[in-house]
């Protein structure tokens, strides 16, 4: 039996606000909405692919956060806990509207079959600065490509590369191993790279 359990000290920018809400200052929940509605809405857009589902996800997430906030144990960052709820809300929503099982992305489909398929020259787009490349058309193409990712890869990609969570945090949010997160992220990025290669192939 552990006599003196060590409490994990988590540096959490939201800790003070969450404690205030849980101590009875419920009106401060609006501050939480203000702080996160933009991020959650954009997370929802990339995960769900349309405005209506993104709005529903944000609303359901905040309602669930409000409902379960008393159970938050301060053992993880609040933001990570909230994204766990948001992720689960997205996945439930998509399962209701789409019954097709997720496609697996195997590494082999991105591997050059033999040496002749290896490009030796750097494509022009990979050498261009971002401001020369990014325009509305490419952004639209990329957003569609993200939505086309099978869900299990998309959620890892969005959490890691768009929302900026670390591998360990993403593993915690999705209740997966860090190794699994790395595998899925790599395949998601390769999928998106192929979409970009296709987009630029005639230029």
């Amino acid at each position, binding site marked *: 039996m552990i006599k003196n359990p060590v409490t994990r000290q988590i540096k959490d920018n939201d800790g003070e606000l969450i404690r205030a809400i849980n101590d009875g200052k419920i009106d401060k929940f609006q501050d939480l909405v203000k702080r996160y509605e*933009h991020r959650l809405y954009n997370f929802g857009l990339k995960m769900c692919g349309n405005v209506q589902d993104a709005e529903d996800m944000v609303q359901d997430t905040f309602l669930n956060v409000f409902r379960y906030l008393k159970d938050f144990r301060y053992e993880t960052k609040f933001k990570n806990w909230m994204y766990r709820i948001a992720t689960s809300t997205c996945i439930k929503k998509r399962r209701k509207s789409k019954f097709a099982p997720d496609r697996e992305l195997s590494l082999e489909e991105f591997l050059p079959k033999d040496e002749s398929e290896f490009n030796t020259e750097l494509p022009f787009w990979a050498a261009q600065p971002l401001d020369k490349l990014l325009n509305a058309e490419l952004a639209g193409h990329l957003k569609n490509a993200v939505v086309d990712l099978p869900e299990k890869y998309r959620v890892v990609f969005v959490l890691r590369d768009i929302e900026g969570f670390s591998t360990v945090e993403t593993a915690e949010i999705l209740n997966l191993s860090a190794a699994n997160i790395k595998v899925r992220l790599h395949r998601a990025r390769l999928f998106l790279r192929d979409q970009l290669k296709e987009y630029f192939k005639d230029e």
Partner: protein
Amino acid sequence: MNNEPHDHEKCLKLFRKLSEYIDRELDDASCREVEHHICQCEPCQACLETLKKTIELCKNMDDQPVPAAFSSKLRGLIRSVT
């Protein structure tokens, strides 16, 4: 660039590790192995650079503003439960 014979199997092995290399999540030995190979293999350099540019482009996609009507509705809903 040197003139060592090209080892395609090595390319395939490193292909699996490129994201971890970019994210600086490889141990020192694996990292050195990737760097040693990359500096003498043009196809792998192209592979690495296209993957890095893909990530960079995705990270710099613009966010969308929250629709004002939805934001107002959400605040009203939260007011009604708090």
